[in-house]
């Protein structure tokens, strides 16, 4: 990234704040950008105060840009996602918010058959295809007792569908930067934000520079193991890596940021150095992001592997409600440390 040379870490922002600031910048600079979703405003007509989205991400946007551009909808996901697609085909750049990714299930046709396919159906080669500047923002993640239908992490399911770019930011700068890249993209981009990270503050560059889609970042450098993690699993992986450093083990921690397309070059480069792979993911235990990375690495760099790759994911069951059950469901720092040690001892 060109701006990294004189990058100025001048602020500490939460993901919710960073997205809100980025949204203000984006809507200011491009009048074709609109927002669509439920409870985006929540205005008190007597006092003028507003909710600004259930996580506060859209706060102030309606005041700044008007209700023509910040469109609060009925609870009609199929209709408003479809409307976003049509608007994206006819001159607007919609950012559509689906409150929780679990609710994508009610509008899956518009996402996987329509949004994902129309661009590719419009021409045999990319130069002949129409642009589809649609962004869908949604939330993922367990940990707050929301239960089975408000806690899933469905990025693995979505990454199986060609035609969708899927990003899962782990910090405020990436969230804002990926949003900017998403709005500028001619592909459908789905930004999946972890609810458990919204309020954490992260140091950011004040200008919230764009973050390229499809490019990972090496969060920590080491020798013994490559850990691939996403979203809320990044802070977990970092804390595990730090604990292990004290015992003399070091690792590459890679945050791919975008799961589709996936930065396999960065992953393979690291693997050729370390020879050991762990994928830590809050998504599916079966045929999800973790299995995909392991399959790619196993088939493309088998010779480099010193031992079988491992995945650390929740078990193949619904997200349970009670706190101890939910905690047992989620990957932990101890899981990572134990897996790392096991792998190093066996090879």
């Amino acid at each position, binding site marked *: 990234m060109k701006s990294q040379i004189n990058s100025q870490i001048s602020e500490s922002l939460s993901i919710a704040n960073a997205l809100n600031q980025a949204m203000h910048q984006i809507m200011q600079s491009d009048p074709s950008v609109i927002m669509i979703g*439920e409870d985006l405003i929540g205005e*008190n007509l007597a006092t003028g*105060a507003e909710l600004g989205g*259930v996580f506060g991400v859209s706060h102030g946007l309606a005041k700044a840009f008007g209700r023509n551009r910040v469109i609060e909808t009925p*609870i009609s996901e199929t209709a408003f996602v479809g409307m976003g697609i049509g608007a994206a085909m006819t001159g607007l750049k919609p950012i559509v918010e689906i409150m929780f990714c679990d609710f994508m299930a009610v509008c899956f046709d518009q996402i996987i058959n329509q949004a994902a396919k129309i661009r590719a159906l419009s021409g045999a080669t990319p130069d002949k295809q129409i642009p589809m500047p649609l962004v869908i923002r949604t939330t993922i993640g367990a940990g707050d007792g929301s239960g089975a239908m*408000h806690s899933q992490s469905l990025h693995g399911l979505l990454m199986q569908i060609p035609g969708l770019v899927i990003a899962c930011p782990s910090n405020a700068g990436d969230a804002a930067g990926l949003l900017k890249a998403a709005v500028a993209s001619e592909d459908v981009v789905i930004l999946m934000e972890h609810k458990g990270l919204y309020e954490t503050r992260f140091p950011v560059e004040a200008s919230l520079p764009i973050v390229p889609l499809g490019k990972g970042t090496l969060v920590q450098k080491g020798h013994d193991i490559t850990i691939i993690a996403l979203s809320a699993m990044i802070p977990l992986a970092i804390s595990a890596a730090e604990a292990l450093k004290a015992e003399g083990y070091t690792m590459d921690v890679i945050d791919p940021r975008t799961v589709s397309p996936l930065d396999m070059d960065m992953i393979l480069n690291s693997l050729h150095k370390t020879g050991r792979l762990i994928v830590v993911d809050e998504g599916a235990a079966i045929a999800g992001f973790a299995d995909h990375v392991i399959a790619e690495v196993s088939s493309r760099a088998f010779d480099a592997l010193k031992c079988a790759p491992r995945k650390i994911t929740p078990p193949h069951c619904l997200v349970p*409600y009670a706190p*101890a059950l939910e905690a047992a469901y989620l990957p932990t720092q101890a899981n990572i440390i134990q897996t790392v040690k096991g792998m190093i001892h066996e090879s």
Partner: protein
Amino acid sequence: MKIDELRILLSECFFYRAFEDEISRLAQRGETPGLVHLSRGAEVFEAALMTALDLSVDHMTGSHRSHVLALASGADPVAVAGEILGRNCGLSGGVAGTQHLLSYDTGFLCSNGIVGAQVPIAAGAALSAKINKTGGIGVAVMGDGATNQGAVLETMNMAVSLDLPLFFIVENNGFAQSTTTSNAGGAVSVVARARGFGLVADQTDGSEVRAFYPVLMRLIDYVRSQQKPAFLEVSVPRLGGHYEGDGEIYRTQTPLIDPLDLLSDLADQAEIEGISDIQSMAEHKALSAIQTALKSPKAEPNAKS
């Protein structure tokens, strides 16, 4: 409604209110794992609904806001409280939680984290009743916001086209989260929309038992005897936030009438004696159920309940 029925209704409503009030206090103290959506304001209607149904053959589904429906279906209050609190004694051992109450044995098939999703499921119960000739009906309880979901609109049409004994109930509390019903609903009222699908439909005041009870009985009788769907919109206040802890920044200050006060007044007028005793007994029952639930262990991995 007879005096005895009124007394029982009053006692049940006091019980539900005390139950929700105590859950509210526990939520404020962080004792509920997730956000709870309370039924305060809908108790009178929901309690009366249960007296009008026959849950030995009828089946019902509800929304995210279903604590009272589950209780009123006859589910063990300790198990309902236990589920909301994530305890072993919960309806589902603490796995499901406040938004996903299932009380199969009492005819309450599910409440739901997905707005509107419970509605087609109730159509399935209506289909079973029809094919198996059980004499039962399906009942789908939802909020006004749910009437904007595709699944709900599809079910409204399908119930008419398949002649399902399905009773749609929309509790209109004026809000879907922070969005007002009038903002979301377009130009046509919910009940006018239902009529557009060919449903027999009515609208009534869910705060006032004398107003809604005859309408409720008539429509349930219609669904059962004609084996056809019907639709009822009841207005009920949402006496509190969308969930417990919601600051309700969006709500303008309009005084709300508490249906439970209206019911107490009615009981007074009917010269029911010992209303305060009825209330304190109901409150005691609610608190002791919740206390019992709190004594049950928190759900743990592999715990045997």
